[in-house]
């Protein structure tokens, strides 16, 4: 089997080098126009054609290396020898490939020192196309096969392939663009290296001042960001835990409603929560108006600043914490809790000394996600921040504002990364090396232990008012789409919906005349492509990180979190920087938007998968391996079915974030691929709140439908925990 795999990959790579156009096509692959020009036309020529007909000699070494791989696959050799040969040939091929791709661009050599070294190059190349991509993938696969043959990754080609896939895609679509932009932190305006500038950019009062604590003056943006993120991480974790406990461990009657409710904020397009909060708490909002009318209290601007942003972030990110925690809380095995009670611990002691510590990976992960979501959040601070500046808004305005200073933006982004890094290591310290496995092959009674009264009351006191509050806020938002001018003229109307979603029935059939349809369909299509890929990549990465031991695991874990910690705007600009020029030239296409979705949203899939997977006892994997199941079988038949909540979470999150994300894609959308959120933002900027809210409501309904569909399609995991009327009473 294994000697067939390298054969297939090297043959596929060589075939692609002969029969597919090497470079990217202006009109796309599906037009078929390239079929006639595979040899003769410079635009359409295959790799071989480029070398022979069009003088691109620099492609030849890569293809030779690929041919060497083919030879290594065909020659009789021992496993070890074949592995070594494949490893050498594919590594050489990859290095040559990368060197030529980075070294030769649109106008010959890409760097001045290359020109001085080799002289002027008479030749140019545009971005990589289908042929080049297949060759690259083939070389990577051959590399992983070579490693596995030599005994790396437990000799398992599947594991080796998975590691290579995850690592190389993260390098390509997360690390590379982010590096491209971070380098600017060390450069002056003309692109010259000046490390001292970084110190100068970062060591200012505006970033580090602590005057707000001593009274009088403002704190620097770094502190602002940190205070907010700590508050948000702690708050969302507490709320998320309260909801998760109520849903899994009490006989509370409206669990379904509660579940939908906690998902609502996450499916809400940005700005809606902020606008609704202003409507309720703003100076002309209901609360202030009522206070003034009833008690003569002067209306205040209380909502603008830390309080408002904090509140909005709690609304926005509690569901994420809930999604991370629900799988973990469900997974805590009753066996240990029963053991504790058998040893005469009361319910409260059991809860605090057994259940909570077992949930620690989940709590730490939820806190990490809340913290990082907060520091990367852009929509809420921009609407509600007033002059409470945080790093993400500072970065945004350093890029697009009146300063236009990429160096400053990059330095601030670096600072943000340091914060994320700090939180990440803190989380690792907290979780430590203890074992949290509670899902094992051993049987248990399957009855979840009811919550102790104190905990139940506390959870209910926190979660239920919050739920009511959420409902109220959404009520307002919904009404906002049904009145003429929100906050002004409350005449009921359906005009906004008609304007967005009109469909005319004519003799030629249906015509989608509404203003929103174009962006609506594009969003739906791209999000539907991105979500399964996001979930798959995220869960595979999680499986590798938790279950496999290999060199560079910690680095990989950090790399998966990288794109999550960087604010969307930076990612957006970084993508334009990195992917607007060869070798990967994909700006203006739908592909760059999908890639941005995948690599921006994958981290939550990774976190949820890791938290859930650390609960599943290794003995289950080992049992599968003992029964001669190989790594892929173990993954698909044992681990994945137990991971259903995490899969649902990752799929839902991947889809929903693709639909609601805005700051990352604002530079990537074009007239052809307009997204719902960018359309809504334009409406908000234009003051056309009615249409924006109507569209948002339609999106919310759509996403809820999709979530139910995903839940239905993936299903629940069956843990043998029975749902029996709990004695703990009602919450």
């Amino acid at each position, binding site marked *: 089997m294994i000697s067939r795999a390298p054969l297939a990959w090297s043959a596929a790579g060589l075939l692609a080098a002969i029969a597919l156009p090497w470079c990217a096509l202006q009109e796309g692959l599906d037009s078929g126009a390239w079929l006639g020009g595979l040899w003769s036309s410079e635009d359409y020529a295959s790799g071989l054609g480029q070398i022979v007909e069009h003088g691109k000699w620099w492609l030849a070494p890569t293809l030779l290396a690929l041919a060497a791989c083919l030879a290594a696959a065909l020659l009789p050799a021992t496993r070890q020898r074949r592995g070594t040969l494949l490893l050498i040939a594919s590594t050489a091929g990859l290095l040559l490939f990368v060197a030529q791709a980075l070294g030769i661009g649109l106008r010959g050599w890409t760097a001045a020192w290359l020109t001085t070294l080799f002289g002027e190059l008479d030749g140019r190349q545009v971005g990589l196309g289908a042929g080049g991509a297949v060759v690259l993938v083939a070389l990577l696969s051959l590399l992983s096969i070579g490693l596995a043959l030599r005994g790396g990754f437990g000799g398992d080609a599947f594991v080796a392939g998975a590691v290579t896939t995850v690592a190389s895609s993260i390098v390509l679509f997360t690390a590379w663009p982010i590096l491209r932009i971070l380098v600017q932190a060390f450069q002056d305006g003309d692109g010259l290296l000046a490390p001292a500038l970084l110190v100068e950019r970062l060591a200012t009062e505006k970033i580090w001042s602590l005057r707000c604590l001593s009274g009088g003056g*403002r704190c620097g943006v770094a502190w602002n960001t940190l205070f907010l993120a700590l508050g948000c991480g702690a708050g969302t974790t507490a709320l998320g835990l309260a909801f998760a406990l109520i849903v899994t461990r009490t006989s509370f009657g409206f669990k379904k409603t509660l579940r939908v409710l906690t998902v609502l904020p996450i499916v809400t397009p940005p700005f809606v929560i902020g606008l609704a909060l202003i409507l309720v708490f703003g100076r002309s909002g209901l609360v202030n108006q009522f206070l003034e009318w009833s008690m003569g209290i002067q209306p205040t601007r209380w909502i603008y600043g830390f309080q408002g942003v904090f509140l909005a972030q709690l609304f926005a990110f509690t569901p994420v914490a809930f999604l991370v925690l629900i799988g973990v809380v469900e997974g805590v095995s009753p066996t240990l809790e029963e053991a504790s009670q058998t040893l005469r611990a009361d319910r409260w002691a059991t809860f605090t000394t057994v259940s909570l510590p077992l949930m620690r990976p989940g709590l730490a992960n939820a806190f990490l996600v809340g913290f990082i979501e907060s520091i990367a959040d852009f929509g809420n601070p*921009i609407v509600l*921040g007033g002059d409470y500046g945080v790093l993400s808004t500072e970065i945004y305005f350093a890029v*697009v504002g*009146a300063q236009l200073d990429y160096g400053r933006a990059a330095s601030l982004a670096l600072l943000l990364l340091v914060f994320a890094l700090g939180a990440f290591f803190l989380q690792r310290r907290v979780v430590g090396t203890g074992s949290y496995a509670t899902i094992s092959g051993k049987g248990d009674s399957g009855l979840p232990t009811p919550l102790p009264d104190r905990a139940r009351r506390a959870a209910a006191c926190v979660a239920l008012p919050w739920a009511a509050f959420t409902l109220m806020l959404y009520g307002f938002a919904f009404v906002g789409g049904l009145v003429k001018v929100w906050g002004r003229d409350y005449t009921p109307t359906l005009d906004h919906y008609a304007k967005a979603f009109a469909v005319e029935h004519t003799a030629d059939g249906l015509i989608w005349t509404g203003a929103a349809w174009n962006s609506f369909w594009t969003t739906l299509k791209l999000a539907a492509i991105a979500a399964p890929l996001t979930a798959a990549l995220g869960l595979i990465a999680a499986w590798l990180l938790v279950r496999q031991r290999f060199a560079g695991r910690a680095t990989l874990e950090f790399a998966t979190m990288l794109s999550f910690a960087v604010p969307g705007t930076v990612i957006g600009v970084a993508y*334009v920087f990195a992917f*607007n020029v060869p070798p990967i030239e994909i700006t203006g296409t739908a592909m760059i938007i999908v890639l941005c979705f995948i690599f921006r949203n994958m981290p939550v899939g990774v976190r949820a998968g890791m938290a859930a997977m650390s609960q599943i006892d290794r003995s289950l994997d080992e049992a599968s391996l003992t029964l001669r199941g190989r790594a892929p079988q173990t993954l698909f038949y044992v681990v994945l079915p137990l991971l259903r909540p995490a899969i649902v979470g990752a799929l839902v999150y991947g889809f929903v974030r693709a639909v609601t994300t805005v700051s990352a894609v604002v530079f990537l959308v074009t007239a052809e691929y307009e997204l719902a959120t960018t359309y809504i933002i*334009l409406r908000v900027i234009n003051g056309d709140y009615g249409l924006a809210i109507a569209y948002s409501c339609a999106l919310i309904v759509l996403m809820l439908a999709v979530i139910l569909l995903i839940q239905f399609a993936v299903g629940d995991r069956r843990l043998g925990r029975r749902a029996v009327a709990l004695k703990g009473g009602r919450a």
Partner: protein
Amino acid sequence: MRLATIALGALVLASPASAQGVVNVYCSVQVEWCTLAANEFQKASGIKVSMSQKGSGETIAQLKAEAQNPKGDVWFGGTGDPHLQAAEEGLTEAYKSPRLADLHPWAVKQNTDSGGKTVGIYAGALGFGFNTELLAKKGAKAPACWADLLKPEFKGEIQMANPNSSGTAYVAIATLVQLMGEEEAFKYLKKMHANINAYTRSGTAPMKAVARGETMVSISFVHDGVTEALAGFPVKTATPCEGTGYEIGSMSIVKGARNLANAKKFYDWALTPEAQKLGAQAKQFQVPSNKATPLPPEAPKFADIKLIDYDQAKYGKSAERKRLIARWDSEVGALPKP
């Protein structure tokens, strides 16, 4: 198969738009205006317009990022300073349109100041927006002069944008500096700080806050107030009696544009009265730069406004801008909240 090819060929020939090619426009005015302009130009010329709408700050960020391999052809609209900055950084291309002779002098001056790399397409004056209901409730008189903003009844009631992030706020500061001299202007800004409730990040936010009753007075471009008033909010505007500055909405051709000939056609067309009346149709009430464009009745008349002789060349330069913003930062922005 052959039939399909013929049908496809016929389809391609039948659409005149593709026969004339395309032009990629980055559009920094309101989206309705952008769409109208795209459709009308397409009708007039047969050239397909691929329009993407972005704020002027986002557009120049994108131009910079794409500088090695530009994707856009024309940058239409948006406040003048980023256009001047793009010209200064060599991101845009000089072009002398035959229409230049039909334009107001301020639009032509924008062109000469930038070495021919940008041109004015509309202008808007800086002024105050105020919420008439809030004023009446407090019994305050509407501000009519810069000096009025220092009155105690406006304590905590004024919003302006933060010049670090907003071009509008920078125009305000540059205006005050040109009006009073730099030292006096900063004294004034420090005094006004006591009346300011927030320096917002975005330039249009203060006017929206006025419309929704979140603040009483804003320092904004007056044409933005007209839009809010038409949407049904109790907003009125005034321009300061001492004189005021203005922005020149501009248009530039991207350096290295792939469709240069079409870009020039769009550029020429955008300077005609037919193209410039589209702004008013999209409910945007700036003053168009072609002298022959009819002025909508709602638009603030430039004749009624006391305009200063705004030195776009001097205050549009990035060095001067950086210096003034840094000074504002350390002397005004760093003051404690009153």
